[in-house]
C-alpha cells in the first residue's frame, strides 16, 4: 500500500493502519531528531510526540499540500522548535544548528582533524544553510522534500545547498591556505 492508501484508510476510520506509516518512518524521524538533539531519551520523547501529533491530526492531512513524508518531517521540526523554546536557553533552531559534532569516532588523527575543520567551519554558516546541508546529506531528503519541510521552493533549496557547499569549499580553501602560510 502506498502512503496515500494508508492515509485514506486512516481517514475513513481505520486508524490502526497508522501503524504502517509508523513502521515506515519511525527510524527516519528518530534519526532526524537525534541528529539535532544528540540525546537518546530526548530524541525518543520527541519522536513519540511527533507520531502522536501525526496520528491525532491525520484527518487534517491533505495530499494537495505535499507528501506525507514532508508532512511528518515538518511536524518533527516544529516539535523540535517547541522543545527548544521550552528549554532553559530558550533558543530556536539556531541552538540546534549550533550543537557541535561529538568528535567521537575512530580514525586517523588526520581524518579527525579534517572532520573537525569541516564541522568548525559549518558553525560559521547561517543556521538555514547548515540545516539544508544536514537535510540533504544526513537525512538524505530530496530537494522536493526539503522544500516542503522548510517551506520554500525546490529551486531555491537547490540553490541554497549549492551556495552552502560552495561557501564551505571556499572557506576551507582559505583556511588551508592560511595554515600553509604559517
Amino acid at each position, binding site marked *: 500500500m502506498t502512503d496515500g492508501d494508508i492515509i485514506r484508510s486512516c481517514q475513513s476510520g481505520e486508524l*490502526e493502519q497508522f*501503524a504502517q506509516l509508523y513502521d515506515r518512518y*519511525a527510524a527516519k524521524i528518530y534519526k532526524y531528531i537525534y541528529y539535532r538533539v544528540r540525546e537518546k531519551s530526548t530524541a525518543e520523547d520527541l519522536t513519540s510526540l511527533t507520531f502522536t501529533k501525526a496520528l491525532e491530526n491525520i484527518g487534517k492531512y491533505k495530499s494537495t499540500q505535499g507528501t506525507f513524508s514532508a508532512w511528518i518531517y515538518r511536524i518533527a521540526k516544529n516539535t523540535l522548535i517547541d522543545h527548544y523554546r521550552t528549554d532553559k536557553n530558550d533558543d530556536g533552531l539556531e541552538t540546534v544548528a549550533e550543537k557541535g559534532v561529538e568528535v567521537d569516532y575512530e580514525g586517523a588523527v588526520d581524518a579527525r582533524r579534517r572532520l573537525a575543520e*569541516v564541522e568548525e567551519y559549518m558553525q560559521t554558516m547561517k543556521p538555514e544553510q547548515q540545516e539544508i*546541508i544536514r537535510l540533504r*546529506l544526513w537525512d538524505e531528503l530530496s530537494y522536493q522534500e526539503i522544500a516542503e519541510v522548510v517551506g520554500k521552493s525546490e529551486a531555491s533549496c537547490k540553490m541554497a545547498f*549549492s551556495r552552502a557547499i*560552495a561557501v564551505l*569549499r571556499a572557506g576551507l580553501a582559505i583556511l588551508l591556505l592560511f595554515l600553509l602560510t604559517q
Partner: protein
Amino acid sequence: MSNNIDKILADLYVIDESLRDHESQLKDIIQNILASRPDVDIDRDFEQTLRTELLTRAAEIKKGRQDSKFTINSLLMNKKFLYGIGGAALCALLVVPIMYYSGAANLQPLALDLNPRLVQAAPNAFGALTVAGGPNAQESASFRSSAGGGSGVAMDTAATPVSDGLGGDGRVASDMIVAPDVEIKYSYSGEEVTIDEEQMLVLKRLKNGFNDQQLAGILQRMNFNNLDLGKFSNVQVQNITLVEDRQYGLMLNIDFVEGAVYISENWRQWQAASPVCSDEGCWERNRLQYGDIPADDQLIALSNDFLNQYGIDLSSFGTPEVDNQWKLYYERAEDKTSYYVPEIVSVVYPQLYQGQPVYDESGNKAGVRVNINVRVKRVTGLYGLRSQQYQSSLYDIETDFARIKAIAEKGGRYPIYYYQPNVSEINLELGTPTISYVQVWKYENNESHELMVPAMVFPIIGSTADQPMYRQNVIVPLPKDLLNDFGQDGPIRILPVEPMGGDGSGAIEPAIIEDTEI
C-alpha cells in the same frame, strides 16, 4: 556511499557547473560531512513500545467517536452475528464482525498477521534463554506429548486454551515418566560439520495481542439490568469463545492476549460423529480399520478445502503433510486387529524460517495443525494460528562440533539417564545434520515465551520395531546459553526406580495402605 556522493555532485553541477572544477575538494567535503553524521539507530524496544502506544491511542480516538448503547437482546437477534460465526473469513486479516449496535460505525478488523515479520533487537536482548530454577522449571508441551509415546492419536491441543503462561497449547502434563526399559544409543559417524558463525539470531515471538480497547468499550455498554459493566475500570478483553450452533459446528476461541485463534469442535454438535455404544461388542464392531483412513492426498485436500472455505491463508507456511506417526506403531503391533486406529488425523503446515522448517525439540515439524475426524471426514480443529511477529537478537552459539555430536548421541539436550533394570539397548545411526530452527519455551514470571533458536538437526536413520518412541530427528539447540544445563535432569524427570521384588521378577510391591477407621 560513492554512488550517493556522485548523485549529489551531479545535482550540484546542474545548478552551478563551475563547481565541477573543484570536484576533488567537494568530494572530500561531502564525505567528511557524511562521516560526521552520528552513527545511531532507533532502539527496537522503544520502537515497538511506541507502536503499541500509538495503536492504543488510535483505539481511544475511535472509542471517543462511539456513543450509542445496545442491549443483549438486539445482539442475539442480529443475523450478522450468527452469519459471522458460520462464514467468518479467517484470512490474513481476521475479521470478527460479531456484533453491531445502532448508530455507530462497524467494528474494525483485528489483524492476525500470518506473514512472518522480524524486528531486530540488540544482542542478548531476551536475557538468559534458560530460566531461573533450572531446567525443571521449563515446560515444553510438544516434547512431553511426544515423550509419552504413541497411541496414534493426533495431538489435539487444548479445546479451552488458556493464556496464563502454561505453554503454547495450554497443555499441562506430568513432568515425570516411568524409567524406560529400552535404552537408545545414537551414534554419528559422518563428517564433521563446520559452523562458521559464532553468533546467530534467536527469535522471540511478540505477543502482539489484538487491540481490544474497542471491543472492551462496546461490551462495557451492554445492559444486564442488574449489573452495570460500565462500573468496572480499565477493562480488557482477554478471551472470546464463539460456537457454531449447527451439526458439526465449530468452536472459535480468540485469545486477545496471545494474539491467537483456536478452532475446535462444538462438542454438543458432534455427537453423530461417534458411534453410540454401551457394550464392548458395539465398540469392537464400530472400531475403525486401517483401510478406513483416507489417503494422504485426500486428507490434505479436506484440510485445504477447509482453509479456503474460511479464508485462512497459510501461503507463508510449508507444504502440508499428514502426521502418520501412528502408522509406524501400527506396523509394529503384533495384533493389528485390536490396534486402535485413530479417529483424528492431523495435517501439518510446517512453519518456515529462512525457507527451512521449524521443529519442536522432539524433532517434529512445528506449525499449524489441522485435525480431521476421519470417520465423518470433517475438520475438527485448527491449532497454531497466531501472529507471526518476532523480535530477533544475536546470541553466542556453540561451534565445537565434537560437543554438539556428544549431545546428539545422548539424544539431545535432555538425555535420559535412568532406566529399568535389565534394560535392552537399541542402536540408531544419526544422519548428516543440517542447521534449522527449533521452538523452545522460556517460562518466566508466570508467563511463557516462545523462542525460535538455531539448532543442529540430526535425522535418525532407520528405526526398529523395538523403538519405544518414534523420533524422526535429534535436535541440538545451538545457543550456548541453552546447552549450559546439558547433563542435568531435563523437564522429564524419572520416577524413582523401585528395587526388584524378592523373586527377581522385577515386580514392584504396591504401596501398603493402612486401613483406618472413619
